[in-house]
């Protein structure tokens, strides 16, 4: 408003454009909008420039041979591979289907982990005894490198979606849990006292004061945890793959390994192999295959390095 007033005043006081002089600035806000737009364009331009520089130097160095094309791939090669997968299809079916499966695992894992994290975080945050009893176990569980649990889940839950969701969920759970717990603990004493004096019972206190107050903490954690859910889903898929399941990454290892890995890791998707039916129990099957297939993986690595 004040800008417009100022502009109006400027218009009155400015000399009516003398011949030869440029027209007086009559609208400051228009000028400001123009400046903002110019800045925005500059930023877009610079962003494109960064991408061109990075990809260009990658392409260039691999072409000249400073960087080994075999290990690091090549932007043009990746683009070509991606185009083939999009236009034709991958060895496992259409690309979008692979992406969809990974996304499904990610979202499910995210939801399960978040709900558990918030519920248990709020519960322990509100109940001192529970917190004191369980804190040691939660800390201990948190100390486990959780990605490793993906292997455990692949064995115990099987190679279908459940093991991936579990891996994603457990990665999400701890982040959300600790934030929810801390958020509940950090609720301002005054707000709680005020609500109690105003007549809030325990349930109201939790739903109307504690949770809204802790929400900023929880939401902050969701940001990170969605990324972690994706990590969990992909790691789960990788564990599925090492157990003899054909997937894009591992099957492409001997020839196109670096290129296809670089292209889009989350496409990885396990599929139970037909040979699995020959084993009787799930556990022995999983263990047997674990042993059987870890060696080809190593062998192919040896081949790669040797070659």
């Amino acid at each position, binding site marked *: 408003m004040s800008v417009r007033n100022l502009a109006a005043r400027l218009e009155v006081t400015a000399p009516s454009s003398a011949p030869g002089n440029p027209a007086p600035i009559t609208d400051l806000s228009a000028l400001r909008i123009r400046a903002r737009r110019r800045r925005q364009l500059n930023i877009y331009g610079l962003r494109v420039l960064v991408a061109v520089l990075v990809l260009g130097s990658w392409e260039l160095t691999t072409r000249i041979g400073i960087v080994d094309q075999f290990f690091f791939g090549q932007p043009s090669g990746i683009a070509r591979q991606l185009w083939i997968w999009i236009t034709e299809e991958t060895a496992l079916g259409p690309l979008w289907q692979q992406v969809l499966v990974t996304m499904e695992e990610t979202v499910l894992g995210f939801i399960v982990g978040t709900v558990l994290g918030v519920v248990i975080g709020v519960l322990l945050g509100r109940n001192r005894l529970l917190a004191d009893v369980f804190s040691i176990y939660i800390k201990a569980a948190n100390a486990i490198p959780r990605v490793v649990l993906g292997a455990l889940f692949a064995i115990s839950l099987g190679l279908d979606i459940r093991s991936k969701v579990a891996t994603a969920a457990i990665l999400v759970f701890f982040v959300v849990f600790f934030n929810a717990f801390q958020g509940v603990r950090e609720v301002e004493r*005054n707000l709680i006292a*005020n*609500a*109690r*004096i*105003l*007549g809030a019972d325990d349930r109201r206190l939790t739903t109307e004061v504690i949770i*809204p107050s802790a929400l900023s903490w929880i939401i902050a954690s969701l940001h990170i945890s969605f990324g972690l859910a994706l990590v969990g889903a992909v790691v789960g898929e990788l564990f599925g793959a090492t157990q003899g399941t054909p997937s894009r990454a591992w099957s492409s290892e001997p020839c196109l390994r670096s290129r296809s890995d670089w292209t889009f890791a989350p496409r990885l998707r396990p599929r139970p192999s037909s040979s699995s039916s020959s084993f009787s129990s799930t556990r022995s099957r999983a263990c047997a295959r674990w042993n059987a297939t870890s060696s080809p993986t190593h062998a192919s690595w040896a081949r790669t390095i040797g070659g």
Partner: protein
Amino acid sequence: MTPAIELRGVTKRFLTPSGGVYTALRDLNLTVQPGEFCAVVGPTGCGKSTTLALISGLEPASEGEVLVLGKPVHGIAEDIGYVFQTDAVFPWKTVLDNVAAGPRYHGRTTGQARSMAREWISRVGLSGFEDRYPYQLSGGMRKRVALAQSLINEPQILLMDEPFSALDVQTRALMENELLSLWANTRASVVFVTHDLEEAIALADRVFVISAGPGTVKANYPVPLSRPRNVTEIRMQPQFSQIYGEIWNDLRDEVLVSYERQKLSGAA
């Protein structure tokens, strides 16, 4: 007549984080009659706020009896309003929903609670701000929200813990007058904690002086100034300065004791 608030021989001890015992109040006796406006003054750290916490039931007394409306206090007492020193309005709720919180907690529907809240918002002079959030309001306006939030429950006891200490002098005088006129319509018993003796005399019927910690009531002075009062004008009256002189004599000693102790603990 049963007093509105009665504290008999109340002692309050806290465990310090290092495992020691800190006595905040010792053998405190205090009586507030129904409809009386009392102010509690004392040096920093003498246990003024603790007294309010005991009356409200937020903290239990270690020894002695706390009676509110003739009944011993166990947990949060009914019929109590509490205006906190720092902001305690809910930052995620609009002014309307903040004020409507009390009636909703007492079982009113949201619709009923909101129409009651509108009424109280206009009484504290915030009409037109119903949809604002606390962060969009000035400090004085937030205090008005806090007042409406407490008064909407029509408490028989209103506890106020240095509610206006964070406000600038002009806003403060405005809010004090506002409080007096709101209180005149409710006739609740008020315990108003402050470190400002002038504020205490201008507002209250009776001023309690608490000794340097562990706090106990050193003296209590009636303030026979006529009502309705205007807090800025009343300070010009000769009687005001006379009462001020008397109470300050008492309070000064306690303030000095408290100051000396702080210096010592600072030096130690």
